[in-house]
C-alpha cells in the first residue's frame, strides 16, 4: 500500500484506563472481528494478562478505516518493560493517549507519554469513560492539554465501553498522525519491536518496515546479533495471522523465522536482507536489556528441580529478558538465580511457574545487581548477596529516576517515604491545582522489596509511580549475614546500606525467632556484619514432647505418626542441625511492612 495511506500508532494508558477496551472497540468498528467473535480484551492473549488487566507481550493488529491501513501496535503497560515500550513506540508515528475521565493522568501514562514525545510521536489525546457518573471529562482534558499543550476542545471524549465517539478516534488518527516516510527504494530495513515463540514454527518477529521491502523466502539478517535466517512467511495480524507475499516500507507485520531460540532475535534489532543491497546502518536505539532484579528460585520439594529447569527453559522461549543460572544454596538446595527486568516481571514469572507448571517454589528476597571493584582493579557484577565479599571496599548500586504523581495533600508523605529510602529530591511540578508530579533519584534496592506497597498504602491508593534506570552510583553498603545455630544461612544474606544494617538485622532475627519452631536445643539466631554480631535472639528449647500414651491398640497409629513426623523433619531445611521451615526464608520479605505498621 502507498505509504501515504498507512498510519502506525499505539495506545498509551494507565492500567484500567481502558486501553484494551478501546482496542476491542476499534477491532469491531473496523469489522476486523465479527461481533459474535468478540471477547473481552482480545489482544491480551495470555490468561495472566487478562486477569491482571495488563499487557505483557505487545502485538500488532492491522485494521482498515476509510481507505487507510491502520496498524495498532500494542505496548506493555508497566514500568518493568520500558525498553519494550520504547521500541514499540519507535515503530509508530503517533500514539493515542487514553486518560480516565474520573482518575486523570497517572505516573505511568506520563512516563509513556514522555517516551512517545521523545520519539517524536504525534499524540492524540482521548478522555475515556465519559459515561461514568464520577467522570470529569473537562477536568481530565484540561490536565492533558496542560501537559501536552494544545486545545482541550481537540481532546476526543469517548466511552470505549459503550462505543461512544470511538469513530472520532479513528478519524483523528488518520487526520493528525503522519504517514510513514521511509524510502521504499532503499536497502531493506525493519525494526523488530516484539517477538514470540510458536512451538511449530519457531520464533516469530513483529516488525515495522522502515525502508525497502521484504519478500517471502528472502534470506535475512539481524544486524546487531548477526543472526541469519530465511523469511519462511510474512504477514500481518488481523487479529490472527494473514500471510502476504511482501511487506513494504511503512507497513507493520510479522515474519516467521524458523529460529528455535528467541534470544537469537532481540527487540530493537534491525532486520535487513542478505540478497542484493543490504543496509549499511542499523536503525538507531538498540540496546541489550539487562535484568536488574535478582532472586533465587528453589523448588520446595527438591525432587522438582528438573521440572523447574524445564519450566524456565520453556518460559525463556517467549521471554528474552528472563535470565537464569543454576544456584546451589546450603539451606535451600538446588535452584536457580533468576534475573528480571523488575518486580512485576518477577511476579509474573513466578506466577506462571506456579500456575502453568504446577511448581511449588521458595523465592528468596529479591536484590538488585551490584557492581563490585575487585582487587584486580576490575569491576564485577554481582547478582547474589552470598557472592559479595564480606568487607566491601567499593560497591556501586543501580539508581532509578522515579516519577510519582499524587494529590497534593500527600506530598509530605511521599517525601518522608523517599527520605527513608535514601531518595534524593530532584524537583516537583503541579499538573493541576490538585495534583503534583514529584521526581526523585532512588536506589533501586530501596524499591524492590515493598516500595510500591508502601506508596499505595500511605496515599490510600492515590499515588502512581513509574521509573527508569539512571545508572550506577557508589554506596556505603554492607553484607548482613544471618547465622542459625551458629551457621550462616546463605539464602538469608542481604546487602544493605550501612545506616540501616542494625535495624534491619534486629528485625530479621526477631522475625526468624517467631518463624523457627522450638527445637530440642536452644537455637541462637544472629545477624552479623563480617565477624561482628549486630543482633541476637534465641529460640528456647522445648521442655516436653511426648506421645501421651501408647498401648496395644495404639501402636500402628503412633508409629505412622512418628514416621510422618520423621518425613516432615527430612523435608524441612536443615541448617546446622536446626529445622528451618520454608516460611522463615520469606521472613525477609515482610520486614518493612511490619516495621511501619
Amino acid at each position, binding site marked *: 500500500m502507498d505509504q501515504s495511506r498507512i498510519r502506525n500508532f499505539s495506545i498509551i494508558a494507565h492500567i484500567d484506563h481502558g486501553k484494551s477496551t478501546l482496542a476491542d472497540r476499534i477491532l469491531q468498528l473496523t469489522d476486523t472481528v465479527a461481533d459474535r467473535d468478540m471477547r473481552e480484551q482480545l489482544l491480551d492473549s495470555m490468561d495472566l494478562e487478562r486477569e491482571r488487566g495488563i499487557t505483557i507481550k505487545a502485538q500488532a493488529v492491522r485494521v482498515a478505516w476509510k481507505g487507510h491501513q491502520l496498524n495498532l501496535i500494542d505496548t506493555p503497560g508497566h514500568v518493568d518493560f520500558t525498553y519494550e515500550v520504547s521500541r514499540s513506540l519507535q515503530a509508530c508515528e503517533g500514539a493515542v493517549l487514553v486518560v480516565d475521565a474520573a482518575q486523570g493522568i497517572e505516573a505511568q501514562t506520563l512516563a509513556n507519554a514522555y517516551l512517545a514525545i521523545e520519539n517524536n510521536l504525534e499524540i492524540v489525546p482521548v478522555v475515556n469513560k465519559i459515561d461514568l457518573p464520577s467522570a470529569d471529562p473537562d477536568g481530565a482534558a484540561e490536565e492533558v492539554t496542560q501537559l501536552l499543550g494544545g486545545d482541550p476542545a481537540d481532546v476526543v471524549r469517548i466511552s470505549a465501553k459503550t462505543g461512544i465517539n470511538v469513530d472520532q478516534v479513528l478519524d483523528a488518527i488518520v487526520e493528525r498522525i503522519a504517514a510513514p516516510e521511509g524510502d521504499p527504494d532503499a536497502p531493506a530495513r525493519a525494526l523488530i519491536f516484539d517477538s514470540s515463540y510458536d512451538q511449530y514454527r519457531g520464533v516469530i518477529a513483529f516488525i515495522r518496515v522502515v525502508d525497502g521491502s521484504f519478500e517471502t523466502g528472502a534470506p535475512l539478517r539481524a544486524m546487531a546479533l548477526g543472526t541469519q535466517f530465511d523469511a519462511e512467511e510474512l504477514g500481518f495480524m488481523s487479529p490472527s495471522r494473514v500471510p502476504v507475499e511482501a511487506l513494504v516500507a511503512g507497513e507493520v507485520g510479522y515474519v516467521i523465522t524458523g529460529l528455535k531460540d528467541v534470544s537469537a532475535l532481540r527487540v530493537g534489532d534491525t532486520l535487513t536482507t542478505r540478497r542484493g543491497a543490504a543496509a549499511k546502518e542499523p536503525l538507531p536505539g538498540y540496546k541489550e536489556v539487562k535484568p536488574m532484579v535478582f532472586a533465587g528460585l528453589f523448588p520446595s520439594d527438591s525432587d522438582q528441580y528438573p521440572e523447574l529447569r524445564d519450566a524456565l527453559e520453556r518460559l525463556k522461549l517467549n521471554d528474552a529478558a528472563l535470565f537464569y543460572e543454576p544456584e546451589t544454596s546450603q539451606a535451600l538446595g538446588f535452584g536457580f538465580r533468576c534475573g528480571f527486568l523488575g518486580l512485576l516481571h518477577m511476579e509474573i514469572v513466578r506466577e506462571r511457574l506456579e500456575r502453568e507448571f504446577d511448581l511449588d517454589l521458595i523465592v528468596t528476597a529479591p536484590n538488585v545487581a551490584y557492581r563490585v571493584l575487585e582487587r584486580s582493579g576490575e569491576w564485577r557484577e554481582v547478582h547474589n548477596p552470598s557472592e559479595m565479599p564480606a568487607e566491601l571496599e567499593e560497591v556501586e548500586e543501580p539508581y532509578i529516576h522515579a516519577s510519582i504523581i499524587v494529590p497534593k495533600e500527600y506530598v509530605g508523605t511521599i517525601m518522608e517515604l523517599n527520605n527513608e529510602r535514601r531518595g534524593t529530591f530532584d524537583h516537583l511540578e503541579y499538573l493541576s491545582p490538585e495534583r503534583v508530579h514529584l521526581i526523585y533519584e532512588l536506589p533501586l534496592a530501596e524499591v524492590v522489596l515493598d516500595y510500591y506497597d508502601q506508596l499505595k498504602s500511605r496515599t490510600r491508593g492515590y499515588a502512581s509511580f513509574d521509573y527508569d534506570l539512571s545508572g550506577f552510583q557508589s554506596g556505603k553498603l554492607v553484607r548482613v549475614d544471618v547465622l542459625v545455630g551458629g551457621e550462616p544461612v546463605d539464602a538469608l544474606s542481604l546487602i544493605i546500606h550501612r545506616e540501616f544494617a542494625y535495624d534491619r538485622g534486629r528485625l530479621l532475627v526477631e522475625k526468624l525467632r517467631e518463624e523457627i519452631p522450638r*527445637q*530440642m*536445643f536452644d537455637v541462637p539466631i544472629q545477624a552479623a556484619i563480617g565477624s561482628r554480631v549486630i543482633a541476637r535472639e534465641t529460640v528456647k528449647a*522445648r*521442655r*516436653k*514432647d*511426648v*506421645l*501421651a*500414651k*501408647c*498401648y*496395644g*491398640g495404639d*501402636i*500402628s497409629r*503412633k*508409629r505412622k505418626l*512418628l*514416621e510422618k*513426623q*520423621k518425613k516432615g*523433619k527430612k523435608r524441612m531445611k536443615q541448617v546446622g*542441625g536446626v529445622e528451618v521451615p520454608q516460611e522463615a526464608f520469606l521472613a525477609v520479605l515482610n520486614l518493612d511492612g511490619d516495621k511501619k505498621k
Partner: protein
Amino acid sequence: MSSVEGSARHLYVHLPFCMHRCGYCDFVTVVGRADQHGVYVDALLAELARESASLADVVDTVFVGGGTPTLTEPDALRRVLAALPPATEVTVEANPETVTPELAALLREGGVNRISLGAQTFAPRLLDVLERVAGPDDVRRAVHTLRDASFDNISLDLIYGIPGQEPSDLDNDLAEALALAPEHLSLYELEAKPGTRFTHAWGDELTRQSEAMEGYFERIVETLTGAGYRWYETANFCLSSDRAADRDLRAHHNLGYWQGRDYLGVGIGAVSTLGEERRRNGASIGRYISALRDHEVGEEPPRKLEQLDSLTKAKERLMLGLRLDEALPLGGLEQAVDGGGLERMIAGGLAVVQGEPGADGGPFLSLTKRGRFLGGGVTAEILA
C-alpha cells in the same frame, strides 16, 4: 496369613459398655444397650474360644478394658472372668462410681488381682469439663472399698491439661492421689483427638495452654518421683520396689506391649499382634455379634489385617522401648536406627548408648531425663 500358634502370653479383653460417652474419648464404646451385655459376652467368649490356640500354654497377664468393664451386667461379667485363663496379673478397668462391695467381691472371686481406676481429676469443675460421672468422693470411696476387699494393686488414672486447669489444681490432684497410696499411677495429657466432640468444643483453648503444659509434665515427674514412685514409662509410675516389699509393681500387661511381645485381643475394636500380623477387630457390635454368636465355634468377626515386616517390627520396638526407663538392647534393631539422628541426640545430651555388640543384645540405648521429656521428638530423630 498364619499367625504364630501359641505365642501370646498377654490377653486383652474389651468390654465396650459405658453409661455415657465422655467428650474426649475416642475408644470403641457402646452407650446404653443393657440388653446387649449378655449376647455380646456370648460372642466375646466364642471369639476367645476360637482364638485360644494363639495363646501360650502359660498366660502371664490379662487386661479387661473398655468402655467401662465394671458397668457390664454382673452375670455377664462373671461369665467373662470365669472364662479367662489363669494369669499372674489380671487387671480390670473400673470407673469409681461403679465400685461397690458387691462388685469388688465379684472381681476377687473372678481371679482379678489388679484394678485400674479412672479418677482423672479431683476438681469437680474439671470433671464437668471431662463429662465424667464420678465425683472426687466416689474415687476415695472406690479405693477404700477395693482395699476392704483386699486388693493390693490399685492404679489410678489422672488426666492433666484439662481446659481451665491451674497449676494449683494439678498440685491438688497429685496430693489427693498420693494420699490414697496407689501402687501405680498413670498420668495422661489430655489429647484433643481429631473428630471428637471435645476437640470441637475445646480445641482452641488447648492450643492456647499448650506451652504451660510443658511445665505441668515436669511438675508431675518431680512430685511423683519425690514421693517414691518410679517413672518407668513415659506416662506411668509405680511405687518403687524398695517401698513395696520388693514387688515389681509395673503394669506387666502393658510392659508386654512396650517390650514388643505378642498379644491377643478379643472383643470389638480389640487389636492383636501375633508374629508378623496385626489385626484389628471392627468396631460394630452388631456385626461382631452376628458373626460369632449364632455359630457353634463362630465365624471370624470383621477384621482389618496389617502385615508387619521386620523393619516395621524393629521400628516399633525402638519407638516403644524408648518409652521405658530401662535401656533398650539395640542388637537386631540396626535397620531401624538413623545413625546421624542418634549421634545428634547423644551429642545433645538426650540419649546414651552403652556396651558393645554381643550376645546380651547390646549395645544398649537409653534416654537421659531431658531426653525422656522430649521422647517424641528424640524418637523421631533416632528412628530411621
